[in-house]
């Protein structure tokens, strides 16, 4: 048994693909049409064989409530690791990304939180 996929729920898969590739810099890995939606995954450009991130359509209404509650509370849906959080935040801000938490040291790590424009807060983490 292996961990191959993790996911973020998104309100619009095409919009999400654009954000996750063009803004965050991930690379599309799989796109399989599945009726109204598709099986759509991206990977890190630095680890193309690594865990895939599924941009999962919000087909189940109660999930939208859960996602919104997390978003409103500022709680990240998931987290991505970076080598230099300050540099990444500056880069993303220049591309118009909105942060709800500026880079903040938490003991041996530094974290920041941004809006992925698809209904989620995403946390960046740099291990110091």
């Amino acid at each position: 048994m292996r961990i191959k996929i993790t996911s973020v729920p998104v309100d619009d898969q095409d919009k999400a693909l654009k954000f996750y590739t063009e803004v965050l810099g991930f690379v599309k890995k799989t796109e399989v049409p599945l009726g109204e939606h598709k099986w759509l995954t991206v990977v890190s450009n630095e680890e193309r064989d690594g865990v895939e991130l599924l941009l999962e359509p919000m087909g189940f209404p109660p999930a939208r409530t859960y996602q919104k509650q997390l978003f409103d509370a500022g709680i990240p849906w998931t987290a991505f690791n970076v080598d230099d959080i300050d540099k990444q935040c500056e880069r993303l801000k220049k591309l118009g990304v909105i942060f709800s938490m500026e880079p903040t040291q938490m003991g041996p790590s530094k974290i920041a939180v941004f809006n992925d424009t698809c209904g989620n807060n995403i946390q960046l983490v740099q291990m110091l």
Partner: protein
Amino acid sequence: MKYYNKRVQQLKKELYEKEYLIRHIIQAKNFADANYADKIDLNKMAREAHLSKFHFMRLFKASYGRTPYQYLVEVRMKKAKELLKKGLPVSAVCVSVGFDSIPSFTRVFKKITGTTPARFQLLAKKATLDKTC
């Protein structure tokens, strides 16, 4: 301020009040990152952190969720995997990541990755060939 931001600030206050201690722990971790190929051990890492061995071990585990030794092994294995993928002989990789003998290197590598260095290298080579076909 949002709920999550408040919680982060609260936790920061509760857990990481003594900033100088965290600085010392990070310094020791960076020391391991830079010197994984040398014969470093708990004593050397604790010295780097200016802390007693047991105090250092406890704080390191509380900060990084693993002991200093476990962390050092992880760094060494990560580097070993990179070198094996580049095609370096197992014996050369063993020395490059701070191990004295191939059996001990193989034992630790297998424990961490689930496979031997030689097999890991073989699989990595096969994966590269499959991609180019």
